[in-house]
């Protein structure tokens, strides 16, 4: 059997006496999007930080496209978009500088070429060419999310992790960024992990759902199966709560 594109096995991480990850494992094929859901404190962000190389797991292994992840330095092939997109951008950098920085770090092309590539990435996420000289500070919350996405994409990651980046946004912005992510996935064949405490949002965007509880992945299934016939009590609880909080279909007053 062919090795999956991403394989995470037995990942364990403790902070002092508190276990954040307990033998968490899953596989993900290329071009798929995994919705990683669970309560706050269930280990979702720790898992993301291990994959991106910001944390070293105590035990376990991570392989992406046949290569071992988990060295000392953050892995450039894994890009993480944080919840607070605004806080993760240098407010004084111009939009094009924010996006061309990953290119510069990787010594891609000449300054002129990098500017051109940055402009293309900005256009890809829906930021007008005219705005590329504005500082990050001058952009709205939703636009800063787009900037953070453009910067992550400019690093040409093999795996993109979106960590609760949509949860602070109102529904109008959430819908816009969700549509953007769906569009980018189609165009760029991205392999993606979407972290959210909102099962409905994850199920809407992702192909498969993994549910975390106390540092473990307790259920991992295609969206239809996770939503239609959830097996683990945590998944059932999430599916039921999500059903109660979803709007009735249009016209069903």
């Amino acid at each position, binding site marked *: 059997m062919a090795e999956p594109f991403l394989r995470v096995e037995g990942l364990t991480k403790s902070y002092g006496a508190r276990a954040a990850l307990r033998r968490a494992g899953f596989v993900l094929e290329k071009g798929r999007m995994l919705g990683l859901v669970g309560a706050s404190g269930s280990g979702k962000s720790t898992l993301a930080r291990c994959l991106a190389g910001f944390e070293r797991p105590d035990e376990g292994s991570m392989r992406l496209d046949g290569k071992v992840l988990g060295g000392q330095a953050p892995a450039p092939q894994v890009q993480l978009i944080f919840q607070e997109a605004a806080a993760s951008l240098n407010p004084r950098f111009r939009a094009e500088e924010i996006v061309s920085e990953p290119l510069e770090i990787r010594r891609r092309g000449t300054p002129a070429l990098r500017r051109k590539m940055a402009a293309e990435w900005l256009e890809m996420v829906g930021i007008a060419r005219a705005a590329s000289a504005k500082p990050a500070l001058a952009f709205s919350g939703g636009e800063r999310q787009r900037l953070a996405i453009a910067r992550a994409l400019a690093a040409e990651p093999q795996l993109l992790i979106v960590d609760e980046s949509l949860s602070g946004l*109102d529904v109008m*912005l959430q*819908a*816009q960024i969700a549509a953007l992510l769906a569009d980018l996935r189609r165009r760029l064949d991205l392999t993606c992990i979407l972290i959210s405490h909102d099962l409905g949002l994850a199920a809407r965007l992702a192909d498969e759902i993994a549910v975390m509880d106390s540092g473990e992945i307790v259920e991992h299934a295609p969206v239809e199966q996770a939503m239609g016939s959830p097996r683990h009590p945590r998944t059932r609880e999430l599916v039921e*709560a999500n*059903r109660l909080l979803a709007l009735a279909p249009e016209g069903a007053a």
Partner: protein
Amino acid sequence: MPEALVQVRDLRVTLSSAILDGLSFEIAPGSITGLCGESGCGKTTLALALLRLLPEPYRVEGSILLGGRELIGSSEREMRSIRGARIAMIFQDPILALNPVLRVRDQVREAIRAHGLTGRPEEALELAGLEPSRRIMRAYPHELSGGERQRVLIAQALACRPALVIADEPFTALDLPRVVELSALFRDLMRRTGTSFLVISHSPGVLAHLADSVLVMRSGRIVEQGPVDRVFGAPADGYTARLLAAARATERAHG
């Protein structure tokens, strides 16, 4: 039709331009009213205006009747007897709203004493659905879970048995099962104490589940209001329809 608990007429809040532009609505006693709209549409400003917490140079005009008593033009002294006692507010971020160096027991006791009352903190916590165990009573805010912190705030808000509780985005940071629990708690409190709730949320799905009636705001105006089933089931305003479409585009209920 019972007399309204709160009757707002042509409420205007102006800074250099109009932030709230002629709002009129009523809140019935013993009801839950949802307030939704995009970030920056004026939801929190409305909450602060009801509590008369907007400082100079904000200009607040119009009429806010609470049980027949006019709040616009009331003195700061009169307002101090209304805030907490008649209208309480639960702020968005429990970790910021709680005093980090006070244990839960002292935190709730302080809220009770500040209003010259003598109730026990244990009772207020029980009312908010939090078992007043030794661990909870002795805990500092950072030692509690998000849901527990939220309930300490609710206990403080309810300590004076206010007629109206305003909750500003109380669900944002919570896991979905905790949202369902907190909604059930609000409805239970409404039934048991007769308290009305004004719940601010940008999520129409949560309000459809929780509220009796809803106000939809856009750019400082109310574009639509009415029973939640009617407004969300058959929106009359194009903006409400767009808001609902956006919410539906980010959810999936079934397999």
